[in-house]
């Protein structure tokens, strides 16, 4: 156990966490040069493209240190986005130490701070790593200063490196061995093993990734899952190298995989504690919090023929994504679909992209919503995340909406603009404090609903990319809510209905009307688009009738091309949603729902 180190790498998006992980793996011979693909740990396409880690992966490395001893390094990868902070927490609980990566050119950002606080919450030893020192714009001294000033860490502990160029990798490995503590724990004690990740394997079912805190986990044991109160027999376990390496047992301090005949990820709870059914531990490990969805949206297949495929795809995704929730939903305009719950907007986008890419489904998503709580006049309470279920407004005594505490790190010169953004988004208790000369941490208590729509994009653009943002859920607060409906030629498009704060209703409705007017192609007749609250029109726009669409030339060589275009358009027309005899193309829904800049 003395020669084991369990550690993770924490960093702001793009600061090079995955590249550093790959270099460590490569240096320890986990993979040979031929097999080496950049960012081995980020295996999903989407992760690779966006340079972020969504699903965490864990790997065991062998390292011979300068002291001549063999070390077993368990690299516990953590997701790098705020939506997945519960996953980050579980990963941190499995480690004794963390490498805190800071980009030598970008410096400390909000997520760096947030991650550091999280790591400190779990008592981890921190080694700062200053990455990308090879960049021409690198300012190593400046970053070291930030590490001291903003993070309160000793800059002399910091290891400079360039993961991309392979500079300083050995120093990072030595720091892991010398500065991070070995795990503690008693192999003879009653078993406590933390499930911190799970993956679905088409042949073996669920593969759990665990950190054994106390006792010993062995093949043949009956494992008792303490929170879900279920029992499974352990069929196989071992270490996670690039392939699974079977062992007979895993002792306190180790990290490895467990296969126990579990069918789906939702049969278990990540964060749960495994114990031996025959000799149980008195209590589970502390810190268990189930992941709760906070953002909701309805998904509809563009073609109703795809509905059965959507069911199958969601079932499959849920095998591996315990945080995704879904239930049946239907829309007059869009037909049958699912109301889905997500951990955040990125989670929503990831699920949508996976459904489209991996399952080839074309989907429409309704405007994301938070979950509101309503106290009705008859004394009952209601939780609502779907505008379709909005009750008669006269019956609502009081509505409540979820708030977050946003932490925004930014250069001082943008503070005015960002405070205004927070005010515009109904921020409360917006304050700031200086982290260092010229750098400010701004905190604001914001309605989550206000952050769902392009808050981050606006922040990025108004701070020219220097602002960074992180948040945590706070509580629910009273709100003045209305339901805005969009009518096309007097018929409501239910998928575009939404719940908004009364002060934002008009701007939002106008934005929707304008976007629809821009994207619905002209048709044979004039189209009227209105935003209404109840019966009251608060916004409107019109699309004039089309007068001419015939192509100028149609001779011998044009006829086939023209006919094929018409055939394609005819087929496309079948895919269009028809509301009030108006054909609304998918692109219009996408344009309206995707980027919303109501302000």
């Amino acid at each position, binding site marked *: 156990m003395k020669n084991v180190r369990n550690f993770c790498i924490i960093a702001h998006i793009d600061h090079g966490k995955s590249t550093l992980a790959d270099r460590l793996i490569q240096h320890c011979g986990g993979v040979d040069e031929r097999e080496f693909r950049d960012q081995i740990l980020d295996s999903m396409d989407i992760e690779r493209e966006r340079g972020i880690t969504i699903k965490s992966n864990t790997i065991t490395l062998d390292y011979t240190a300068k002291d001549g001893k063999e070390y077993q390094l368990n690299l516990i990868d953590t997701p790098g986005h705020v939506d997945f902070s519960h996953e980050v927490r579980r990963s941190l609980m499995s480690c004794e130490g963390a490498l805190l990566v800071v980009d030598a050119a970008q410096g400390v950002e909000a997520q760096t701070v947030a991650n550091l606080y999280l790591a400190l919450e779990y008592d981890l030893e921190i080694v700062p790593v200053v990455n990308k020192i090879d960049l021409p714009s690198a300012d190593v001294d400046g970053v070291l200063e930030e590490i001291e000033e903003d993070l309160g860490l000793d800059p002399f502990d910091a290891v400079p490196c360039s993961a991309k160029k392979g500079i300083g990798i050995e120093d990072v490995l030595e720091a892991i061995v010398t500065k991070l503590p070995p795990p503690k724990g008693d192999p003879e004690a009653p078993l406590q093993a933390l499930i911190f990740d799970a993956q679905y394997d088409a042949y073996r079912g669920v593969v759990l990734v665990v950190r054994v805190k106390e006792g010993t986990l062995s093949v043949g044991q009956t494992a008792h899952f303490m929170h879900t109160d279920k029992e499974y027999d352990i069929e196989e376990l071992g270490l996670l190298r690039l392939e699974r390496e079977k062992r007979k047992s895993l002792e306190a301090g180790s990290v490895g995989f467990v296969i126990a005949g579990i069918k789906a990820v939702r049969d278990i709870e990540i964060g749960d504690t495994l114990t031996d059914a025959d000799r149980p531990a008195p209590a589970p490990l502390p810190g268990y919090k189930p992941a709760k969805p906070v953002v909701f949206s309805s998904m509809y297949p563009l073609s109703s023929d795809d509905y059965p495929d959507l069911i199958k795809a969601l079932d499959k995704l849920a095998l591996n994504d315990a945080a995704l929730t879904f239930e049946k939903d239907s829309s007059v305009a869009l037909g049958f679909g699912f109301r889905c719950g997500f951990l955040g907007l990125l989670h929503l986008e990831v699920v949508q992209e996976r459904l489209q890419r991996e399952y080839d489904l074309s989907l429409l998503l309704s405007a994301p919503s938070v979950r509101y709580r309503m106290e009705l006049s008859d004394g009952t309470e209601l939780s609502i995340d779907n505008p379709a279920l909005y009750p008669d407004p006269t019956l609502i005594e009081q509505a409540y909406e979820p708030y977050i505490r946003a932490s925004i790190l930014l250069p001082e010169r943008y503070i005015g603009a960002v405070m205004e953004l927070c005010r515009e988004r109904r921020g409360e208790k917006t304050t700031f404090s200086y982290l260092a000369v010229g750098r400010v941490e701004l905190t604001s208590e914001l309605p989550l609903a206000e952050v769902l729509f392009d808050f981050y994009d606006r922040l990025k653009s108004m701070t020219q990319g220097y602002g960074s943002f992180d948040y945590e859920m706070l509580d629910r607060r009273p709100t003045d809510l209305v339901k805005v409906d969009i009518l096309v030629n007097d018929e409501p498009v239910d998928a575009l209905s939404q719940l908004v704060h009364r002060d934002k209703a008009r701007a939002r409705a106008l934005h929707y009307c304008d976007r629809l007017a821009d994207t619905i192609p*002209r048709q*044979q*007749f004039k189209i009227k688009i209105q935003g209404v609250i109840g019966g009251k029109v608060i916004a409107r726009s019109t699309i*004039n009738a*089309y*007068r*001419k*669409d*015939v*192509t*100028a*030339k*149609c*001779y*011998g*060589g044009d*006829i*086939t091309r*023209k*006919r094929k275009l*018409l*055939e394609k*358009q*005819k087929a496309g*027309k079948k895919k269009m949603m028809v509301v009030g005899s108006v054909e609304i193309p998918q692109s219009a829904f996408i344009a309206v729902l995707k980027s919303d800049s109501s302000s």
Partner: protein
Amino acid sequence: MTTSPSPGLYVHIPFCSAICPYCDFAVTTGGSERRGRFIEALLAEIGRDRGSALDGWDPFDTVYLGGGTPSALPVDELGRLTAEIGRRLPLADRPVISMEANPEDVTSQTVAGWAQLGVDRLSLGIQSFDAVELAFLGRRHDPAQAVRAVELSLASGLTVSLDLIYGLPEQSPPAWQRNLERAVELEPHHISCYQLTVEPGTAFARRSRRGEWNAPGEDDLAELFFRTHEFLATAGYPAYEVSNFARGPRSQCGHNRKYWEGARYLGLGPSAHSFDGRSRWWNHSAEPVWRSVVEAGGNPEADRETLSLEARALEFVMLGLRTPCGLDLGKLDGFEPEDVLRRNQRVLARAADEGLLSVEGERLVPTLGGMARADAIARSIELRRSRGFGGC
């Protein structure tokens, strides 16, 4: 069974002295040597071994030399071409021969030469009578040359058509009106007015992508379209197709009408399309590719498609709606007119309500507004055959 009209023959001559920035046809520039090789190849294509797609055609009663710029070829080269056509291919007694020409190629000598070859109709690529517009369109003639070309052609006794383009960026309705007035003053037999379309792959498309383009809006273009039709009808040039206007039926282009009436045609030369009533095929469009295949004695066909009854019906409808005569559902192969009318009752009633067309017995007759919306109407008409209905 209706007796099918005679087929037409199209010959594509891809050479131009320069490529116009709006053109997406199979065109190329090239010196006299390359043109010489092209003519040899074209003669070889005409003389291909029997048993090929050239076999079995009824006599052609129209011949159309298009391009490109056929007028860019020397008269004697064109003569070799027409002679070879006459020798090798079945022609009707007095086929109508049409030819496209650029104003800068029109001289009293060339016009006389073309007439000598039997050319009846000359389609002149005037495009505009405004110097700034001509420069914008990358044309190589000026307004005076344009006028002169029309006058010379008319004086030689040929049937003369002018091509004009409208909907240029920044073009005002009065500016377009002046072009129309100038055209009518010259008293040609026929006028074609094409709305400028930015086709992918053209210089204009690149400029448009770079944002150097202040394209007229949909409403402005519709306005120009309707003005054009009204003005020319009043001036004695009623439309017989969306973009084509003639002084009378005899001045209409019989060859082009074949395309809109579903007649058969044979195409020779690069990119040329052929249609035998059931299948359509087309030659390689790049001149060097087409030529190398022909020179090697091969078949220059790039691809072909056999049209389903539904596809033929869709073409029949989309093309018929481009003409004020409309289409006769009774001529739809494999469909019962009553069946089509019944299936599309709602769509047709609505189109009639909106003044887009009328249903006259088995004919669908578009109004001018309907011709302008021909694509949308064709898209909304359902042309599925009911099951169990046997074709012939």
